[in-house]
C-alpha cells in the first residue's frame, strides 16, 4: 500500500511515494537516484548501504522509510555540505568532505563498493571523537566489511581526515 512521505535528504525535502515498510535504501537509490548508499547484503551485515540519520550511522537496507520521515538524512553525496555546515560556512560548499579528500589522497578504494559506508561511519565517529586512537577507529569501523582488503588504507585516511578537521579544514 503506497503512501506519500516527505524525506529530508542532504538538506532538501523530497516527496516520495512508497509503501511504509520499504527499506530506505530502495527509495534513495531508485526514487532519488542517489548512488552513494549501495546494496551489499540487505541484512545490515556489511554497511555498504549506510547513511547518517540525524548524524548517526544507520543501515538503510533494513530501515523502513516510514521510520525516517521528518529526520535529517545525509548520504555520501551530502557529506561536503555537512562539512560546510559544521564549520559554519555559508558560502559555496567545499567540493569534498575531508574524509573524501583523504580517501583520494591515500588512494583507498579498489572496487570501492563498500567505501560509502566506510566514509559515512567515519563521519559519525569524527563527529563525536575528534582525535580517535587507532583502537577507537578499529572499533568504530568493525561493523563495515570490505572484500578487497582496504582496511589498512582506511585507517590511514581516517587519521588524515581527523587531523585536517581538527584544524578546521586547513
Amino acid at each position, binding site marked *: 500500500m503506497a503512501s506519500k512521505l516527505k524525506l529530508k535528504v542532504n538538506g532538501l525535502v523530497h516527496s516520495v511515494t512508497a509503501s511504509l515498510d520499504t527499506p530506505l535504501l530502495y527509495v534513495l537509490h531508485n526514487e532519488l537516484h542517489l548512488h552513494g548508499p*549501495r546494496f551489499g547484503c540487505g541484512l545490515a551485515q556489511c554497511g555498504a548501504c549506510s547513511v547518517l540519520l540525524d548524524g548517526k550511522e544507520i543501515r538503510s537496507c533494513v530501515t523502513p522509510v516510514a521510520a525516517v520521515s521528518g529526520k535529517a538524512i545525509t548520504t555520501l553525496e551530502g557529506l561536503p555540505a555537512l562539512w560546510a555546515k559544521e564549520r559554519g560556512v555559508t558560502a559555496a560548499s567545499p567540493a569534498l568532505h575531508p574524509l573524501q579528500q583523504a580517501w*583520494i589522497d591515500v588512494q583507498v578504494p579498489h*572496487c570501492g*563498493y563498500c567505501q560509502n559506508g566506510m566514509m559515512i561511519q567515519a563521519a559519525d565517529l569524527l563527529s563525536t571523537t575528534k582525535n580517535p586512537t587507532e583502537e577507537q577507529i*578499529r572499533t568504530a569501523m568493525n*561493523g563495515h*566489511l570490505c*572484500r578487497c582488503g582496504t582496511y589498512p588504507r582506511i*585507517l590511514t585516511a581516517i587519521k588524515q581526515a581527523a587531523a585536517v578537521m581538527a584544524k578546521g579544514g586547513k
Partner: protein
Amino acid sequence: MTGLLRERELSRKTFLKGGGAMIVGFSLAGAGLGAQTAKAADSPFASNGPYDQFQIDSWITINADNTASIKSGSISQGTGSTTGILMIAAEELDMDLSQVMHVQSDTNVTPDTGPKLASNTIKNAGMGVRAAAASARQALLALASAQLGVPTSSLSVSRGVVSGGGKSVTYGELLGGKLFNVRMPESWNMGPPPTVFFLGGLQPGQSPAKPVSQYKVVGTSPPEIDIQGIVTGTGVYIQNVRVPGMLHGRWVRPPGQAVYGFGAPIISVDESSIKHLPDVRIVRKGDFLGVVAPHEYDAIQAAAQLKVKWAAPPKVLPGGGDEFEAMRALDSAGKSVQTATVVGNVDGALASAAHVAGGTFGWPTNVHTPIGACCAVADVTPQGARIFSGTQGEYKTRETVASVIGLPVNKVRVTAVPMGGCYGNGMQYRDAAAAAALMSQLAGAPVRVQFMRWDEIGWDNTAPGTLMDVHAGIDAKGNIVGFDFTHFYPQYESELVEHVAMLVGKPVAPTIVSGTAAPFGIYNVANGRSLLKSLPLKGNWISADWFRHGSRIPVTFATEQVIDDLAHAAGMDPVAFRVQNVSPAARNSLLAVLDAVTRAADWQPKVAASKLSDADVVTGRGIAWYGLSGTDSATKIAAIADVSVNKKTGKVTVKHVYQAFSSGLLVYPGGVANQNDGGIVQVISRLLVEQLRMSRTNVTSSDFVSYPILRFKDSPKVTSILLQRRDVPPQGVGQEVTDVAAAAVANAFFDATGVRMRTAPMTPARVRAALKAAGAA
C-alpha cells in the same frame, strides 16, 4: 539534477538508441566513443565488434580537442588496470594522461582482448594498446611531416603537439574526428582471442614502441581514474544503471546449491502465495524461475515469499565440514583423474634422506562474495538485445547471453559497466546477465537483476577445497633431496557451471581446468613428484571457478610450511635455508624479493620456534615466498608475517605483514601497491575465518554470519615493497599478490608455538585443539 530530470523524460525508444541509459563509467571515460559507434547508430542492438583489430581505429580515436579515446577492453573492477592502460597509451602517444580517456568496453565499440582475468589486462591487452598507440604516433608524425614540410626525423611531440622547424600542429588538428585507416603488421597478431589475448601487440620497448629508458608516464603513480567518482558517489556501478520502463527482477531458487549437475528441479509453484503483491509477475522457463516488478522491494519480497516445491537433492556433499575426507573417499573410489610431473627418483631420495618432514594439509572451500552483488540490466526484444553487465569480458558475456535467449551474437550488444568487486567471480556475473536477459525476454520489458547475498554465497562458483599430502627430505647438510606433493582437487568444469544455461537446458560445452604446476620449482630439487588427483564435479561436488590465483594459495600454504619444517629440522634460520636451496635458474629474482622483505621487516636470523614462551599470549614471525616459475623473469613474491597467539582462547592475530613484490615492469606502481596491500588482507581473511558450510544436500552458508570475512579489528598492518624491473615485460599483479601471506602467517604461528596448523581456517577452536593435541596449551 538536470541530468536526472532529462532522463525521466526519455522514452524507451530513446534508450534503445543509446541516449537514455546511465552508462558512463566512473570518469568521463564513456564520453568519447570511437568511430565505430556512428556506424552502428541506426540499430540499437548492433553488436558488430570486434572490428578489424589490426586497424589503429579499432583501438584509438583522435578527437578534435586534441584528446584521444582509448579502446582496450579493459574493465573497472577494482584493480586499477584501466589507469595503467591509459598510462601506456599516453606514453606511446606522447600525450598527457589528462588527454586520454578510456572508452567503456562494448561489443559494438571496443576490441576483443579477452576476459580480463588471470592478471592479464596490462600483461596482454596492454600489448595491444601499446602497439596501436605506437602505430598511431608514427601515423600522426607522417601527417605532421607532410603538413609542416619538416622531415619526421626533425619532429618531436609533447602533450599531443607535434613541433619541428619552428612550426607546430596538434594531433587534433591533424586527425580530429577522422579515421587513421592504417593497418598494423600481421606479425603483431592483433586479432581477437586467442591471439591478442595471449601474444598480440608489442612488448615495452619493442620497436616502434618507445624505448623503456625514455618513459615519462609508465612507472609513475598518478591517482587512479575511478577513485574520484567512487568517493563522491558520482561514479556509476552496474548496480546504478537504470533504463526507462525497467522492471526489477530477482531469481528464485533454493538458498544454497546442491551437488553440481542436479540443478534446482521445480515440482510446483504456488502462485497464490504472492497474490498480496499484485504488481509482481512470475517468469519461468524450464527450471529457471524469477519474479519481476516495477518496484524493487516488491520483487525482493516476492522472491522471498513465493512458495516453491523443489525436488530433494541427493545426499552426496561433505556435510559437517569434512570436505577433505570426502576428497580422499572419491579418490579411493577410483574417481580421480591423475596427472603426474616427475623428476628423478623421489621415493629413493626420501628413503635415504637424513630427515623427512611433511604431512596432510587442507584448505577449505571459499567463495568470492564481492560486496557489490552481481547485477545486470537487459532489454531483450525479438529484434535484438541490449545488455549492461558488470562483467570481466563483454564478448564472453555476449556468447553466454546469446545462447540462453536464442539470438545471434551480432544482435546481442553487451556494455561493460564497473562492478563492485570480482576476484574471478566469472560465472556469477555471466549468470546475472543471462538471468536478466531471460527475464526480460519472458516479461517483454527491460529487467534489472541484482543478486541477493544468498545468491552470491549459496550459489557461488566456489574456490574448491584442496587436500594436499606433502613430504620432503634433506640431507645432513640441509640440502633438499626430494619433494613429494600430492594434490586432491575438484576440477573446474568452467563453462558448464553457468546456472541459468543449465536450468533452461542449454549448457555450454565444458572447459576442464584444474591443478597447478610443480610447486617446488623455485627450489633446487633433483627428485620431485607432483601428483594431481582431479576430482570431477558432476555428481560429486558443488560448482567451482577461479578465485584469484586458484589453488596456488593452498599449495603455497602447504609447501612453504614443509620447507619451514625442513629448515627447523636442519637447525637453520628459515631465510638461510631458503637461500641455500634456491633454484639456480630463479636465484637472482628470488633473492631480490627476499632481500627486500627481510630489510623492510628487519629480519633477525634464528631457528624457528627456538624461543618458545610459557606465556598465554605468545608472538612469532614467519617467512614464505613464491615464484610463478623457476626462471628469473617470472613474478616473485616474499612475505614476512608477525603474529600473536592467545593460547587460552586460540585467537590468532596477524599484526603486520611485509610483502615484497616483483613482477617485471610495473606500469602503474601506485595501483600495484594498492593491490599488494589489499591482496594481503584478503588472503588473511581466507586463512583465519573463511569456510563455506554445507549439509549433505546443500550449501548452507548464505550471508556474512554463516560465511564471515575478516573485520576491521582483525586487519593486519601491511607494508608493501615493490621491485621495479624495466628489463622484463609486465607479468601480472592482481592474483599473485595473494599467494604467500597465508603461508608466512602459518610459519609465524609455528615460530610462536612450535605447533603446525596444517588446515585452514585457523579458527580459535581449531587452534585450541591443535595446541592441546601437541601439549602446547
